[in-house]
């Protein structure tokens, strides 16, 4: 019986592999699991092992040839009467026929009956049972032995098969097909079974709902082309100015107000993208990133451009306090978000805008820095912080982001412009 050796699936990612060198010559005897050929995938050099014992009758690919998963690498002439891996699932018709004849002749009665070939099966039932038994047990042992081996056993064409049950379990549990590559398969041909997935999932603990929501939002957001621009902003004027304002607004408040006014001046990043349509909201609604125990909440503050600094301070403090209690009264649409990662001592970061929002403004930590003063020809000690704008590059380009950031920096450096003149 001739057994084909097919290119196995090495993990989920590679669809093809290149033959590098044959380790066995045509005509050589090979044993099951013996390494036959070296192949190169995108990632590494691997060996393919024989699916059955026998004589290598034909090599079907020269070194250097690229084969898709499932393509035939070689043929093995199976010498022993032990059925090959695939044959074990159902007794090979020829082998079955010969057993039937032998058994029938022994019994004498059936041999004389001119009955259809299939009917002989009943005479061979005990025999077939024994064969199925060995076949059944052998498969299980194979599955166990195959675990953790360096050489990947050559597939019989369906090693990468994902049963409908496994596929629906993947969807249910939020796994991707590529995750299967990291699991040990205990099924036939090393296939991953539903039990394997359940075992895999039972290892960790469940993500909290907040964490899941953040994970989903970030993954959705990451499908867009995002770019980041950054610049230093002098903070001295702001730090002096905030003492004069009721409620001593934080840098975040100043930044929110400056961002709202800068967007209101007509920057293209004030738009939100719907399909291939840009929509400019009538008001600037901004989300504030608030860190809580196991995630980030983003409550929204409405009509930020209409709130003066003391009012904005009060509103933002309210929504942050509510969010820390796990209550967000308004998490609706906003045009942008503000994240003050400077509170963690970070100088700069590249936060990800929320899905549906075109940009996120990031505030770095305020730090002392030298600044050259040409008038006195000396270094002045100033305080500055790095501001970053991470934006959806589909809506606007770096120039627009730079103009927005510059306009914002200008206002932060002259905070009196942020005070509403009534």
């Amino acid at each position, binding site marked *: 019986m001739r057994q084909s050796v097919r290119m196995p699936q090495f993990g989920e990612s590679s669809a093809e592999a290149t033959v590098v060198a044959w380790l066995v010559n045509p005509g050589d005897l090979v044993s099951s699991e013996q390494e036959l050929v070296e192949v190169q995938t995108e990632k590494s050099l691997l060996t393919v092992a024989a699916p059955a014992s026998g004589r290598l009758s034909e090599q079907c690919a020269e070194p250097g040839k690229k084969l898709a998963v499932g393509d035939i690498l070689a043929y093995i002439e199976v010498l022993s009467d032990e059925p090959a891996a695939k044959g*074990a*699932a159902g007794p090979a018709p020829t082998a079955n026929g010969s057993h039937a004849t032998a058994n029938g002749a022994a019994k004498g009665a*059936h041999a004389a009956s001119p009955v259809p070939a299939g009917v002989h099966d*009943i005479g061979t039932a005990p025999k077939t049972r024994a064969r*199925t038994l060995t076949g059944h047990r052998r*498969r299980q042992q194979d599955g166990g032995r195959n675990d953790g081996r360096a050489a990947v056993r050559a597939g019989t064409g369906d090693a990468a098969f994902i*049963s409908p*049950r496994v596929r629906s379990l993947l969807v249910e549990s939020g796994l991707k097909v590529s995750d299967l590559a990291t699991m040990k398969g205990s099924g036939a041909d090393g296939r991953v*079974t539903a039990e394997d997935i359940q075992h895999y999932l039972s290892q960790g603990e469940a993500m909290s709902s907040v964490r899941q929501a953040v994970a989903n939002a970030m993954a959705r957001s990451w499908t867009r082309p995002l770019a980041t621009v950054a610049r230093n902003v002098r903070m001295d004027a702001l730090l002096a100015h905030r003492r004069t304002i009721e409620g001593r607004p934080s840098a975040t408040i100043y930044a929110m107000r400056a961002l709202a006014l800068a967007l209101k001046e007509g920057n293209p990043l004030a738009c939100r993208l719907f399909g291939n349509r840009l929509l400019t909201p009538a008001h600037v609604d901004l989300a504030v990133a608030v860190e809580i125990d196991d995630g980030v909440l983003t409550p929204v503050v409405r009509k930020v451009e209409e709130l003066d600094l003391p009012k904005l301070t009060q509103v933002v403090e309210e929504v942050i306090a509510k969010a820390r209690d796990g209550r967000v009264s308004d998490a609706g649409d906003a045009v942008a978000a503000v994240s003050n990662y400077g509170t963690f001592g970070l100088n700069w970061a590249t936060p990800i805008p929320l899905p549906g929002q075109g940009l996120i403004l990031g505030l770095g930590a305020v730090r002392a820095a030298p600044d050259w003063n040409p008038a006195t020809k000396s270094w002045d000690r100033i305080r500055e912080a790095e501001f970053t704008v991470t934006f959806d590059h589909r809506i606007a380009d770096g120039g627009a982001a730079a103009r927005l950031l510059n306009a914002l920096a200008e206002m932060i450096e002259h905070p009196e412009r942020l005070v509403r003149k009534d």
Partner: protein
Amino acid sequence: MRRTGSDCTLISWSGMVHRCLKAAEVLARDYEVECQVVDLRCVRPLDTETILASVAKTGRVVVVTESWPFGGIAAEVLALITSEGFQHLDAPPKRLCAQEVPVPFHPDLYAAHTPDEMRIAEAVLDTMAF
């Protein structure tokens, strides 16, 4: 539901139920395969709820009938399973039917014609090996 198990579902009705139960005993004793045996009792209306619940539990199914395969009730049951329970399947659903020959008169030939315990057990093991 005549017997509960978690590995494979055996669906049959009438006389074949008894052979399925015997096969299930053999499978449990010798092969450590626990079969769920579903007795349809009535084929129209078909107890779709029980069939689909059992397939959802085991993911593998063998339908056993003493009738011919072509255009039969077994085909109807399999059509139900593949169209409404596809997401539960771990292996191709299988049916075990009589030989496609006229029903023989001789007892030996009749025994060969209809599925027996051993062939049911064999079909289950094939399904398990997939």
